[in-house]
């Protein structure tokens, strides 16, 4: 059984893995599931953190970073994958290495029906767009998966996505919303 997220600091493990793989630029459109990782990256002087208005900017940003010799990772939630589709051609056609970390919505105990269509389509859309997807269900597996994706990304000029299951992130974040108006 996967442990509840509260017992394992998986965002710190992701941050440590990004650091170990020399990721210098981190861009994001916020997601509640990435809240702690975003804070860790902002607190890291060796990382240049770039908040985006839409996820596709992060794909173009990563291409520019690589032209300039830096590694870039992109954080988003699954709805953001839909915003990326055409821009992914920049990464896949030119073989720009790109690592995406995607927190999933619309799959495990989701309360917002508007999240479901994109959440259900996320993996298919990525794979049809030539992105290699790794799925993580269990918090303890995150470091190994992010590291494997990072190695594939920068050793083979690949575009990869680590999909972080909604079950793993936990429902607590969303209960806050459910209690709201």
């Amino acid at each position: 059984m996967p442990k509840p997220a509260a017992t394992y600091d998986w965002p710190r493990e992701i941050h440590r893995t990004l650091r170990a793989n020399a990721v210098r630029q981190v861009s994001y459109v916020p997601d509640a599931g990435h809240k702690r990782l975003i804070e860790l990256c902002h607190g890291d002087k060796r990382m240049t953190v770039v908040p985006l208005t839409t996820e596709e900017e992060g794909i173009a940003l990563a291409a520019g970073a690589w032209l300039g010799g830096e590694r870039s990772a992109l954080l988003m939630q699954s709805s953001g994958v839909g915003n990326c589709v055409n821009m992914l051609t920049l990464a896949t056609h030119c073989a720009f290495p790109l690592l995406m970390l995607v927190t999933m919505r619309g799959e495990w105990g989701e309360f917002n029906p508007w999240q479901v269509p994109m959440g259900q389509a996320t993996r298919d859309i990525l794979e049809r767009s030539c992105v290699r997807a790794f799925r993580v269900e269990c918090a303890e597996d995150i470091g190994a998966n992010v590291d494997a994706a990072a190695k594939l990304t920068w050793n083979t000029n690949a575009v990869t996505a680590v999909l972080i299951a909604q079950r793993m992130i936990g429902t607590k974040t969303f209960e806050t919303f459910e209690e709201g108006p």
Partner: protein
Amino acid sequence: MSEPEILRRRDVVSALLQRRGKLLVVTGLGSPTWDCAAAGDHPLTFSLWGAMGGACAVGLGLALAQPRRRVLVVTGDGEMLMGMGSLATIGARRPGNLAIVVIDNERYGETGMQKSHTAHGVDLAAVALACGFAGARIVRSSADIAGVRAAIHGRRGPLFYQVKVKAESLPLVMPPRDGAWLKHRFREALLGDGAMG
């Protein structure tokens, strides 16, 4: 009253890229890519043939990775309109070494010369200024081009110039179209031995 001057896009781009030195250049898809190729292909020009709306964000990633080099994005009004959010993203980071030149013919030149939003009064320079750019303005006179070129090389950014040009269809001048090759060429020219790392 004399007739207002009408700038020609190839003259403008050619003048801006004269004696470019160590300038790093990203071109937005369509006519700006052809304009930059007409001015002379260069290993430190990365030409986009697609990725509409992404030119400025490519420039931002490059400017952040290479803070000691000047970075110029040359793009068109249609491409810029699709990526207008990236002006806010650049405004929030304020890289001092990044300049954007929009060659604004107020048309979608590759698809039949349909009018773009700038033909209806949308002021991209005002948007850039509102996003926190250090300098942003519309350029209409050839007398101003030398000053724009000097600013690209030396003035603290981010800078934004919206250069109004004649709506004209010109012969295509195409740079190499293989993006992976353009990427390797650029990285080798900029990073040398580090390019394969």
